[in-house]
């Protein structure tokens, strides 16, 4: 991979995917946990599965690892059909949500466990274990049993153990769920670093959108066993394909209305009596005259005391609440038609110098390309 072309095999027609799902479904009794999924994941990708609890993320992973069989469809890894291939015969390793470290074995023996099953020479095993210990910086804890380690250390042992056999594909099921915020953030960067160093394809499950945005090359947003959108983090954030995705990733203002104008990339939304239409980007699957919703991120909504006449999208309202977050503040502005719109403003001045306060009349405005018009329905959960 050369450094001046961005890593984007999904845009390359000739690229060969490592993993391919073709119309895969999974049923537990009558319950459809995975609903007809098509998906391609490419070598060296850091792929994140994002979705609320119970949407089928773990099930998807377990099908890749070989713990569940697909009820319909075909899963191939490295061009081999995986149907009927048990977990121990797959070049796939999994880091379990609970870590699943063997409590009766110390760190070294945990790391060597998988290597001992693969006819590797003793000296080679020792070398590989040493390498893994160095990778996750646990040399000092080599002889400890899992119960003598902290949560963060256990998590690193689990990661090293899953990487020890140099799998083609590493599955990580909510790997950082048990860590506190600060350690999580550090570990996210460690994970990216390790992924880069080893060149392994990572598939990570998470319900934390920030985590997915941070680590992933692409994100798949899931809902009720379906893949709703698969895209790069910035595209998922800037160009969500539904209100569900917009609401699941980050904060969003939603204004409902009717499409009054649609031309190529541009769309307009008629939304309240006596106001001019909102201009935004045209999302997928909207039709002129149909109901739709306009979605715009709070940080793209500017707040001013004077009317910003240079902008097409401007609305008047009254400040109802201010949430001070340190580096920024969120203003909750009530519009005349009753809508509540959030505007996020960076606090580049000290708090006492700021002019806007509760009950002030203010103007909110945003550029013509700041927001997106999406089909209505499918509210964020």
């Amino acid at each position, binding site marked *: 991979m050369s450094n001046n072309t961005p890593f984007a095999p999904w845009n390359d027609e000739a690229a060969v995917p490592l993993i391919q799902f073709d119309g895969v479904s999974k049923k537990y009794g009558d319950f459809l946990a995975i609903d007809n999924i098509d998906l391609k994941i490419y070598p060296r990708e850091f792929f994140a599965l994002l979705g609320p609890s119970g949407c089928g993320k773990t099930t998807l992973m377990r099908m890749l690892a070989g713990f569940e069989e697909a009820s319909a469809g075909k899963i191939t890894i490295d061009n081999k059909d995986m149907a009927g291939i*048990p977990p*121990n015969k797959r070049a796939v390793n999994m880091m379990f*949500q609970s870590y699943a*470290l063997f409590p*009766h074995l110390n760190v070294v023996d945990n790391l060597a466990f998988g290597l001992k*099953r693969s006819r590797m020479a003793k000296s080679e095993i020792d070398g590989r274990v040493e390498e893994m210990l160095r990778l996750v910086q646990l040399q000092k804890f080599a002889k400890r049993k899992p*119960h003598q380690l902290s949560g963060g250390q256990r998590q690193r042992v689990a990661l090293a153990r*899953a990487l020890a*056999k140099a799998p083609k594909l590493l599955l990580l099921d909510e790997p950082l769920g048990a860590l506190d915020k600060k350690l999580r953030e550090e570990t996210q960067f460690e994970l990216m670093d390790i992924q880069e160093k080893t060149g392994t394809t990572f598939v990570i499950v998470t319900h934390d959108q920030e985590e997915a945005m941070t680590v992933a090359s692409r994100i798949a947003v899931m809902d009720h066993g379906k893949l709703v959108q698969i895209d790069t983090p910035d595209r998922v954030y800037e160009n969500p394909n539904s209100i569900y995705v917009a609401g699941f990733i980050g904060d969003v203002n939603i204004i409902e209305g009717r499409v009054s104008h649609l031309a190529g990339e541009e769309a307009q939304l008629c939304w309240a009596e006596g106001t001019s239409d909102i201009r935004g980007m045209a999302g997928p699957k909207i039709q002129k005259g149909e109901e739709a919703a306009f979605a715009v991120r709070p940080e793209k909504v500017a707040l001013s005391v004077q009317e910003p006449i240079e902008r097409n999208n401007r609305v008047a309202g009254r400040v109802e609440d201010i949430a001070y977050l340190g580096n920024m503040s969120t203003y909750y502005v009530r519009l005349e038609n009753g809508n509540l719109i959030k505007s996020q403003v960076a606090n580049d001045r000290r708090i006492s110098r700021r002019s806007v306060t509760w009950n002030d009349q203010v103007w909110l405005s945003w550029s013509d390309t700041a927001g997106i018009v999406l089909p209505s329905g499918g509210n964020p959960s």
Partner: protein
Amino acid sequence: MTLSKRLLIFVPYAWLLALFLVPFFIVVKIALSDYAISIPPYTPTFDLSAGWAGFVDFLSKLDLENFVFLAEDDLYWKTFLSSLQIAVIATLLTLLVGFPFAYAIAQAPSEWRPSLVLLVILPFWTSFLIRVYALIGILSNEGFLNQFLMWTGLISEPLAILNTDIAVYIGIVYAYLPFMVLPIYATLDKLDGSLLEAAQDLGCTRFQAFWSVTIHLAKPGVIAGCFLVFIPTLGEFVIPSLLGGARTLMIGKVLWEEFFSNRDWPVASAVAVILLLILIVPIVLFQRSEQRLREQNQ
């Protein structure tokens, strides 16, 4: 240490003293006495009214004669060895039957498990003696087992099971099974299923995973179960005397015969003391392994 703490610790020690040490010393004392046709059937007896001189006289009459007798008569040696052998084999048999039992319960749907555990301990609700008697009805020549086997045509002559060592093994396995199943079940029940999946993920077949994870982690339960069966089995009296034959040598049976048939309390007491000394070894080992486990789980 504060006074109240001392008092608190004193209570269990007082119980131990009253219920174990005092009777034990009485038994030791009888073991050092001589057989006599009197009530009680040994001499000397302790007489406070004779004062200090009487006490010294009493001490001088105690000797190790009975222990020497036990050492010289090879019947007792053989009995101890045979008890040990029966207890070891019976413990292994109980493990062989008990482990799958415990495993099956641990694999059952979680809403079933409490009822299954209850079924395992259900036999305790009837008297031990009655249950062993019931086995006679099953194992005897005209018993249910032989009738059934003959009815199926598998055998034409009744099998002689009752009054053999086999009947003793069957009796012990049956009677002590819960002591094996419960501790093993307790460890298997706590076992995290994702460990087995992790083992498979790392290259084990299902069987290898079972072997290297389940069996390994069940070890503390297996050890506890084996001790809980082995220790009482070694001195078991009811089962060998009701189900065993004339040639089944077990120390509990010898004890009983010395006490009640021969009325030789001193020899019987000496046998009891030796049995206790033999049992101290596994009991201490058991305590040690429990201790280690507690430290691991801390």
